[in-house]
């Protein structure tokens, strides 16, 4: 079936629009699209999206993480093996994280990371044929926001929910941050770490995020005010 941008697509559908653009200029195919001999084929079910000038992808529902280069993820250290830590990021096999890829780490000065710690890291190598590799520094050797996440609370959700709340157009985080202070790290592997002053507030943030999965913009706004009023009512 022929489909266009913005439509709901199913695997096996073909998009002529992309191949036409592709003849003139370079096109970037995101997840859910595949180039075949006879055109561009959809491989996942969802909505076909486009970002100008020519990036296309399918926004689909997914829970299982497939490692992809450059994404920030949240993982749990499961094993220390010599020079590397094994980190569970929810993919098909655990990722490796060298102890040298922390800010200021040297052979002598090892970073303090223990089994069970939660780390916020960037995917450096992610290929279907190789074990994924994580780093906790950027190319300048600075840690930025990456590193071990102390305290807080981690929960799992679907991958598209993480993308949804990180989308600048999504009002959730903007509405919530005005209500009460909290820290949040969202891993594109479907794990979210939150830390607020009290347990109540932490749970409120978590529920707000999980609750917005199937809501549209207006509904999210009203849900946020609703949660805030409940929280305020009980606290005061």
């Amino acid at each position, binding site marked *: *079936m022929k489909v266009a941008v913005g439509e709901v697509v199913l*695997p096996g559908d073909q998009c002529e629009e992309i191949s036409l653009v592709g003849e003139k200029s370079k096109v970037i195919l995101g997840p859910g699209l595949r180039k075949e001999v006879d055109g561009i084929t959809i491989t996942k*079910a969802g909505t076909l999206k486009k970002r100008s000038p020519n990036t296309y992808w399918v926004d689909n529902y997914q829970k299982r993480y497939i490692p992809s280069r450059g994404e920030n993820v949240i993982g749990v250290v499961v094993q220390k093996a010599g020079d590397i830590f094994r980190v569970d990021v929810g993919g098909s096999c655990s990722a490796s994280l060298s102890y040298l890829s922390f800010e200021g780490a040297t052979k002598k000065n090892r970073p303090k990371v223990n089994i069970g710690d939660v780390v916020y890291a960037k995917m450096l190598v992610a290929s279907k044929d190789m074990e994924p590799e994580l780093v906790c520094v950027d190319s300048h050797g600075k840690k930025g926001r990456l590193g071990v996440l102390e305290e807080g609370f981690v929960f799992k959700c679907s991958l598209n929910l993480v993308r949804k709340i990180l989308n600048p157009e999504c009002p959730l985080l903007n509405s919530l941050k005005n209500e009460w202070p909290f820290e949040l790290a969202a891993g594109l592997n479907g794990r979210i770490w939150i830390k607020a002053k009290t347990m109540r507030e932490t749970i409120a943030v978590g529920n707000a995020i999980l609750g917005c*999965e199937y809501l549209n913009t207006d509904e999210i706004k009203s849900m946020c005010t609703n949660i805030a009023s409940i929280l305020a009512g009980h606290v005061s």
Partner: protein
Amino acid sequence: MITDNDELKDFKLRPMKCECNYLNRSDGSAILSQGQTVAVVSVNGPLDIKMQSQSIGKATLEVLFSSKGGKPSIGDRYKEHVIRQTCESAILGCLYPRTGITVTIQELEDYGGFLACCLNACCLALLNAGLAMRHTFAAVSCAIDEQGNIQLDPAPAQLETSRATMTFVFESREKSLVTAFTDGSYSDSAYSEAMERCRSASDLVFQFYKQIVSKYSYVIG
């Protein structure tokens, strides 16, 4: 769609109802009812599997079928075989080498056309899991009675009087045949006619898939 409305009325299937993401903890799941026949399918993967069963070129697909009674039988192995072969042709396994994908099917109610219902539920669960696929597939069953009439998606009462039952699975791209299995004996012409009827009726299943996906697609992004 080339088929006009008059023709579509002819190709009536039993009402389908589906809930995707029915199971909370699996990567993808679906419960599908076609008439009174109900099946639940859960898909997990790509997962880490033991070295022995890994294949370097593609994902290893494992299908587990459990019947209502829970006792394994040779018939169940056959069903697993049918479902595995169908899913394998649909999943782009080469994107997930050295991993395993597990598909688990639980029988809930069997009121005719059970394997067709399982296959459709599998397709929905795979869509829900977000695994890359070449195409979707739709299974349609039909029965041929003593007079040679073809009845699509037969109910149990119609199955009892039938001389043959057939199930065909078509893919969404060119509507070509992916899987077929039959029961009973019949003539060549009846076989070809039944296949054509099922092929046309598979459109209804594909429309249903689209409807299900549309329901949640616009809000999750």
